[in-house]
């Protein structure tokens, strides 16, 4: 509850920050302070569960469990790091810096809603709060035609998927015996599923797959991620994608667990398609930004394993997705922070970076290694958890082999960047990097390596019940 209220309030504060001071620095400091405050409030919520700052009777619409709060904490921590690294680039997108920060805080409000919803109504509102500010941030670079195109495309496709989501919710409402939007009531229990229920489930599956950009609902993703300003792409593919996954898992673990025979094979096929399309198309890209857009689809393929494994007795699915979100968000934020400072977004742009900026090249290598899932980085254990989930379900051995094969393909395109940085000669290019920026990047790299050695630091938090 802390996070929902405070993020909304801080969004309003950010909105007014531009009105009272012409100095853009204020907006940046306020945003950093806000993100830090949100993180602290959320941690307070974690350790004093059932006793947050605000006591609000939500009529059962929201439940706060450790899983949701932990993902909130990861999202806020990532946002805080993101502000430290990229706040300057956000200010350069356009003249409305305060508003951009405000929209980001509204997105965080949506994040904390979709990690704690207990009612499909809240899911709908949460997903909308998550998406609508993003449409705007995508189109915020108004002089750039690609950004305009991306925003329009994102908006239209997002509106369609929202319609599908609503239609699915309506079907589930009709199928539930009591006529209820609560996720505990819409499940089928032991009764055989009615056609209404199956239609509703499939529509919801399609809508949520769209929101996390899983194939075959991924067509908007590369253009949107490529077209929007680089700073906002990094926020979209890290924080927002993680939150959408939590919404996905909550729904499928709480409501649709008994209906698993209906959707599990479909989910497995979606996973395979996402892995295949994401990895194969990423190989052929010439621009690093577009390659990362496709690789984000490929990473979604791995995250989808968690949904396959929601029925497992232990919390493996939740543990895996928490670790994956943390590893993937940190690495992408870092890579995009560097990418946003570079003029040339093609692979050639990275040529010889190691000679000019050895430190940037070094941390960038760590981030790419983590994305590729090389041991000693967080990405390795994240992928390991995902594959072990698929093995524990006992049915999808072929999918595990296929995923390992796809991970091998991904190493090719991630290492192309590393190779360009270290083994190619390039012309001198200005990469503006202050000592604070470099220090923050090193800190992110250290966190990634530490998470790669001691993943249980994060995962054990899930089993804290009450303090």
């Amino acid at each position, binding site marked *: 509850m802390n996070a929902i209220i405070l993020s909304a309030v801080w*969004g309003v504060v950010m909105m007014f920050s531009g009105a009272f001071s012409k100095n853009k620095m204020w907006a940046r400091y306020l945003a950093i302070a806000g993100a830090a405050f949100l993180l602290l409030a959320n941690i307070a919520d974690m350790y004093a569960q059932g006793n947050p700052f605000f006591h609000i009777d939500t009529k059962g619409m929201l439940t706060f469990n450790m899983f949701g709060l932990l993902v909130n904490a990861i999202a806020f921590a990532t946002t805080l790091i993101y502000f430290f690294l990229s706040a300057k680039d956000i200010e350069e997108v356009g003249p409305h810096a305060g508003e951009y920060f405000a929209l980001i805080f509204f997105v965080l409000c949506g994040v904390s809603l979709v990690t704690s919803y207990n009612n499909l109504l809240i899911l709908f509102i*949460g997903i909308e709060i998550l998406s609508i500010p993003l449409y*705007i941030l995508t189109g*915020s670079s108004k*002089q750039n035609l690609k950004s305009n195109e991306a925003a329009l495309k994102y908006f239209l496709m997002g509106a369609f998927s929202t319609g599908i989501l609503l239609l699915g919710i309506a079907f589930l409402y009709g199928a539930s015996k009591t006529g209820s939007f609560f996720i505990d009531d819409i499940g089928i229990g032991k009764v055989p599923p009615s056609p209404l229920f199956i239609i509703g489930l499939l529509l919801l599956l399609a809508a949520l797959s769209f929101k996390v950009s899983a194939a075959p609902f991924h067509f908007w993703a590369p253009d949107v991620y490529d077209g929007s300003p680089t700073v906002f792409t990094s926020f979209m593919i890290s924080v927002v994608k993680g939150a959408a996954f939590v919404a996905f898992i909550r729904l499928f673990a709480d409501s649709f667990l008994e209906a698993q025979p209906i959707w599990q094979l479909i989910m497995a096929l979606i996973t395979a398609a996402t892995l295949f399309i994401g990895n194969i198309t990423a190989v052929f890209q010439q621009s690093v930004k577009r390659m990362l857009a496709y690789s984000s689809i490929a990473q979604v393929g791995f995250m989808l394993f968690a949904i396959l494994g929601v029925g497992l007795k232990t919390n493996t699915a939740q543990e895996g997705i928490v670790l994956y979100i943390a590893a993937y968000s940190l690495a992408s934020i870092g890579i995009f922070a560097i990418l946003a400072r570079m003029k040339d977004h093609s692979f050639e742009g990275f040529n010889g970076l190691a000679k000019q900026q050895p430190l940037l090249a070094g941390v960038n290598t760590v981030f790419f290694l983590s994305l590729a899932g090389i041991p000693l980085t967080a990405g390795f254990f994240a992928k390991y958890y995902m594959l072990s989930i698929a093995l524990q379900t006992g049915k999808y051995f072929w999918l595990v082999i296929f995923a390992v094969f796809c991970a091998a393909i991904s190493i090719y395109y991630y290492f192309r960047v590393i190779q360009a940085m270290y083994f190619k000669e390039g012309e001198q290019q200005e990469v503006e990097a202050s000592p604070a920026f470099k220090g923050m990047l090193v800190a992110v790299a250290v966190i990634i390596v530490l998470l790669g050695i001691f993943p249980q630091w994060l995962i054990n938090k899930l089993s804290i019940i009450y303090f």
Partner: protein
Amino acid sequence: MSATQVLFWFLSVLAIFSAIMMVASKNPIHSVLWLIIVFFAISGHYVLLNAQFLAIVNLIVYAGAIMVLFLFVIMLMNLNADTEPQKNKWLKMAGVIAGGALLLVFVAALKNADLKNQLVQTNSGEIGLINNLGLSLFHDYVVPFEVSSVLFLSAMVGAVVIAKKND
């Protein structure tokens, strides 16, 4: 005949007549104006059924917002009786089939309705009152209601960011 019945027949005749006129008139603007009368007549029916909230919302949303939009589109595109395009024969057929299908659904739904009992409850019944709606909205659904304000706020901020000039 009581006043309620007089009103009912008056509103029904008005609604059906305006609906027919809406379809029949050649000038698109006249069609829109007739449609507005249909909406007003239907809102009157809602009031008779003690559903004041529905009546007002019907007026605000349909007669207010959507009709103004229609009028704007028609006026902007400068449509009038002369520019009315020749309608395709197949299009007309499709319209007849679609309308007929809807009629079929209505007939099928009402075929087994029990006509012996009272069909409607005029001036009684509580379900359509704003009182009940408010109780439900601000009691059971207060959290989604409040949270949706964040949604609207972000949409407003976005509209300003996108539409503001000077950059």
